[in-house]
C-alpha cells in the first residue's frame, strides 16, 4: 500500500469512528436534532449530551489514543525493538502516580495546570529511572524488567496514597487509574490536556528521520548528524508531555502503544519515521473503537475502556514474546 493511501485511509477510519462515537450510546441520540440544537438551542438536553458528554469523551479518546500509538512507535523506534512501549517502561505509571498525588490531596487547587505538569514530571522521572536502572546499552529484557519494577513501585505507591487519601471513595478509583477510563470527562479536561499533548506530538513527529537513521545503529546515526542521546531525551520529554497529560486525564490505558505500531509497521515498510503518523492515527482509531465497544457491551456497570484494550493487548503481547523467542532459536 502506498504511504499516502495508508495515511488517508487511516484518517478516514478515525473520522468515521469519531462520528460513530458521537452517535453511539446506551440510549440512542437523535443526532441530527442534537446537532441542530447545538446551534439553535444550546441548552437543550440533546445538545448538552452531544457537546458536554459525548464530544469531550470522543475528543479525549482521540487525543489519548493518538498519543499512546505515537509514543509506542517513537519508543520502539528509539530502542529498535517492537516490545517497547511507554506503559511497559514506566512512563505511564509514573504519570499516574503524580496525578493521583495532585488530584486526591488537594494540590490541584493551587493551579489547574498542576495536574498535567506533575504527571509529566512523574512520567519523565519514571522513564529516566527505568533507563538508569537498566543502564545505557541495556537489552530489551533488562529494560522490561526495570520497567516491571518501576511499574510495581508506582502502582503500589498509588494504592497506598489512595488508601490514605481524604476521600472515602479514593481507594475504589485505583482501578480507574491502573486500567484507564474516559467516561464522563468534560471539555475542561480536554482543553487542559490539549496543549501539552500537541507539544509532545510535535516533538515526536519531528524525529522521524533520526529514528530512521537509528536503524543503522547509534554510531552510524551519529555519523549522519544525529545525536542519539539528544534524541533519547527529546523522546523522553515528548512522551512525558503527551503521555503525562493523557494519563492525568484517562489513567493508564495499556497496550495500545504496543499493539498499534506493531500492526502498522509492515504497512509502512518498517520505516520508523513513517510509522509515527500512521501509529498516531492507528492509536486514535483503536481507542475510539474500544470506547465504542465498551458502550455497546450490555453490562450494568460500565466497563472501563482499558479493560478492553488490555483484553486484546495482553494476548498480543504474549504472541510477540513467543515469536521473538522463535526468532532467537
Amino acid at each position: 500500500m502506498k504511504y499516502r493511501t495508508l495515511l488517508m485511509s487511516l484518517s478516514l477510519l478515525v473520522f468515521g469512528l469519531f462520528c460513530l462515537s458521537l452517535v453511539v450510546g446506551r440510549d440512542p441520540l437523535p443526532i441530527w436534532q442534537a446537532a441542530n440544537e447545538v446551534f439553535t438551542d444550546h441548552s437543550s438536553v440533546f445538545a448538552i449530551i452531544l457537546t458536554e458528554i459525548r464530544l469531550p469523551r470522543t475528543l479525549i479518546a482521540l487525543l489519548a489514543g493518538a498519543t499512546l500509538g505515537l509514543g509506542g512507535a517513537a519508543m520502539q523506534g528509539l530502542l529498535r525493538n517492537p516490545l517497547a512501549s511507554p506503559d511497559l517502561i514506566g512512563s505511564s505509571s509514573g504519570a499516574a502516580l503524580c496525578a493521583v498525588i495532585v488530584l486526591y490531596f488537594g494540590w490541584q487547587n493551587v493551579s489547574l495546570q498542576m495536574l498535567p505538569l506533575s504527571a509529566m514530571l512523574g512520567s519523565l522521572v519514571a522513564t529516566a529511572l527505568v533507563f538508569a536502572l537498566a543502564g545505557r546499552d541495556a537489552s530489551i529484557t533488562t529494560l522490561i524488567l526495570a520497567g516491571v519494577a518501576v511499574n510495581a513501585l508506582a502502582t503500589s505507591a498509588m494504592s497506598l496514597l489512595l488508601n490514605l487519601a481524604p476521600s472515602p471513595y479514593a481507594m475504589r478509583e485505583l482501578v480507574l487509574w491502573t486500567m484507564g477510563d474516559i467516561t464522563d470527562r468534560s471539555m475542561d479536561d480536554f482543553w487542559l490536556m490539549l496543549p501539552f499533548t500537541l507539544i509532545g506530538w510535535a516533538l515526536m513527529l519531528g524525529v522521524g528521520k533520526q529514528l530512521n537513521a537509528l536503524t543503522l545503529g547509534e554510531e552510524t546515526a551519529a555519523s549522519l548528524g544525529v545525536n542519539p542521546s539528544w534524541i533519547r531525551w527529546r523522546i523522553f520529554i515528548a512522551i512525558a508531555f503527551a503521555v503525562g497529560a493523557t494519563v492525568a486525564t484517562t489513567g493508564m490505558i495499556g497496550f495500545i502503544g504496543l499493539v498499534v505500531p506493531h500492526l502498522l509497521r509492515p504497512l509502512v515498510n518498517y520505516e520508523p519515521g513513517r510509522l509515527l503518523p500512521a501509529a498516531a492515527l492507528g492509536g486514535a482509531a483503536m481507542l475510539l473503537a474500544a470506547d465504542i465497544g465498551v458502550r455497546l457491551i450490555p453490562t450494568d456497570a460500565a466497563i472501563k475502556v482499558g479493560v478492553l484494550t488490555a483484553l486484546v493487548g495482553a494476548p498480543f503481547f504474549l504472541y510477540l514474546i513467543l515469536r521473538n523467542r522463535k526468532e532467537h532459536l
Partner: protein
Amino acid sequence: MSLLVATGISFKRKQQLLLQDVQLELKAGELLGLIGPNGAGKSTLLKILAGLQKPTSGSVQFQAQALHKLSTQERSQKLAWLAQGGMIHWPLTVERLVALGRLPHLAAWQQANAKDQAAIDQAIQQNGIEQLRHRDATTLSGGERTRVLLARALAAEPTVLLADEPIAALDPGYQLQTLELLRQFAQGERACIVVLHELSLAARYCDRLYLLKSGCIVDTGSAATVLSSENLKNVYHIECEIGCTSVPWIIPSRFINDQN
C-alpha cells in the same frame, strides 16, 4: 591539498591508552590504508577522524578547519563513516536504506527532492545493487549487505569516506569490486581512508599505508616500505613470503610465538 590532518591524537578509555600521539594526513585524491593487528586502535582512530569520538588530546583538522568546530550537519555532509559489520535493525527496503545516506542534506521537516533521488540512484548504480532495490535489507547476503551499506555512505556524496573493514567476510570477487569502487571514489577532491586486514590488497589499492600497533603509528609510507618483513614480524608476529610483481604481495608463512 590536505583534506584531513590529525596531530598528536591520544585517546584514553578507562585508564587504558588506546591511541598515543598519532599523526595522520589525508590528501585529496588519496586512498589511504590503515593496517595493523586486532586491537591496535584502527577503529578508534577512524571514529575520531569521523568526529564520532573526541580525542583525549590532539586535534583533527578538516580542510584546515578544526573538526569539532564544524557544525554537526556540515561534518556529516563532508565525512561519511562506514561501520564495521554494520547492523540493520528494521527490515527496510534497500532503496530506503540507501536513502538514509541523504539525511545530512535534509532540513528538519524537508522531504527528499530530485537531487537527493539522483544521488541515491547513482549510489545504487555504482554499487551494482540495482536488482536489489526493493529487497528487504535484512535478508541480504554478506556481500550484498556490504555493498548496500557502502552505497548508503556514498549516497551522502561525502568528501571523505572512512570505511572500517569494508571487505571483511567478502569473497575475493567482491573484495576486488569494493576496493575498485573505493579507488574510484578517492579521486579529485575526494579521498578515502580504509581499514584493511588483507595486506596484499592494501598494497595493491592504497596510495599510502599507515601501520598501527598498540595505539601508535609504527610506520607510514608506500606499501613497499611499510610492508617490510621486519615491520610484519614486529607488528603481526608473522614471518611472510614477500614478493613483488608490480606491487608487493604477502603470504604469511609462520606465526612467531614470543614466549618461546
